[in-house]
């Protein structure tokens, strides 16, 4: 589980790097047709999934951190009563 949690954001970075490289290459030679091929479409879809997975993971981590913080600190009402 730890491995997969580490993999998703890194995969996201790698795929976006590849995507960015293709966009730059296409600016120099559009004849290669990188942005119009099916492989590019697959890469975009993979990027999208990786991004969503990374975002979901980030959101999960954030919620977990929030819960931990709440456990450490008592609610505001309890603090006032004390």
């Amino acid at each position: 589980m730890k491995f997969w949690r580490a993999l998703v954001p890194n995969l996201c970075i790698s795929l976006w790097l590849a995507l960015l490289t293709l966009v730059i290459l296409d600016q120099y030679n559009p004849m290669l047709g990188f942005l119009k091929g099916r492989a590019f479409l697959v890469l975009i879809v993979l990027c999208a999934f990786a991004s969503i997975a990374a975002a979901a993971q980030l959101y999960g981590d954030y919620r977990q951190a929030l819960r931990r913080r709440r456990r450490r600190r008592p609610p505001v009402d309890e603090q006032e009563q004390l």
Partner: protein
Amino acid sequence: MRNNRPKELWKVVVADILVGALALGLVVFFQLGLPILQAKSRSRARQAQREQQEQTVQVIAPNGGAETPAAVPTEPPAPTEAAEPAGEETPAPQENGLDGLASGVVPTPEPTPDTRTEWQIRFADHFTDEVVITDHSYTSPQVSITIETKEFDAGNGKSVYHVADIYVASLDNFRTYTANNELEYWSTQDAMEMDRDSHAILTISGDFYSYQPKGFLVRNGELYMSDQTWCDLCVLYDSGVMACYGRDEYVVEDVWSRGVAQAWNFGPSLLDENGHVKPDYELSEAVSFPNPRSAVGYYEPGHYCFVVVDGRQDGYSKGMTVPELAQVFEELGCTCAYNLDGGGSALMTFLHERYSRQSNGAGRELGDMLIVTEEGWEDRR
């Protein structure tokens, strides 16, 4: 543990880059590598088929003497419906002289049938009975070329361009010559060598088909690739009609079934369906600047024009943008015009001499050229 952290981070960064490179490699392989392998395999299959055909014909051909059988033409000329090749078969004179005179019958000369093609009749004013060559024109019974050099100034610098007005008797006179006279991926040849080898009167640079891993490409009636293109398509039909299509505006099978002499993949198509400049062109930034250009235009079957723009030469000509080139074709009155490979490739040759000034001076190897030619014209100069 803390001492290991920078090393781990370094490893992670390297791993990310490697995975990115792997993804990039996969995309490049599927986008370029695989089509290249397919193209090469098709080339090999075509070559094998051609050799097999040659062997079959050699076996079938009557071989009475010691002479080797005549070579089989590997590239049949593009079939033309509208225009028959002119002057190929002149009827032999009637041999009724002696017998006719002896019997006292005066032979009535039969009227010579008009062997001229439809286009030769329609454009009779432009053709001449003899070959007439000047520095800027060539006229014969089958070909008429007039070249003019003009200047264009859109306010940000001068551009010099050359317009060749072309009339042909048939599509046998308007062809594409591929590098080394073969249809092979990555095949290139020096432009001036191609000019000489093709026996062309006039040439311009083509669409560099040999560096295109996929597309709908036809050369002189021979289908080289039949993929849907990613760019605009220009088709010269056997009837002499030229049409440009956007990348989603045609179906390869439909177009091919109508009889295609040439199909070029480069673009963009320069004019709209009314022969006017389009409101916008899908161009990458690198090719949207003023550049040397090469383009083909169409008026009607049998009447075409080539335009080559000189560029990237300070003080002489800066080149044109695609909308500026389209404006030139609109002013010429073309109904269809198509941009071909420009930049360092843009070149026009006339009578085996460079007519335009290529931006890199020394020239460049090209994949193909559009040529206007006529059999045996070099001997009649």
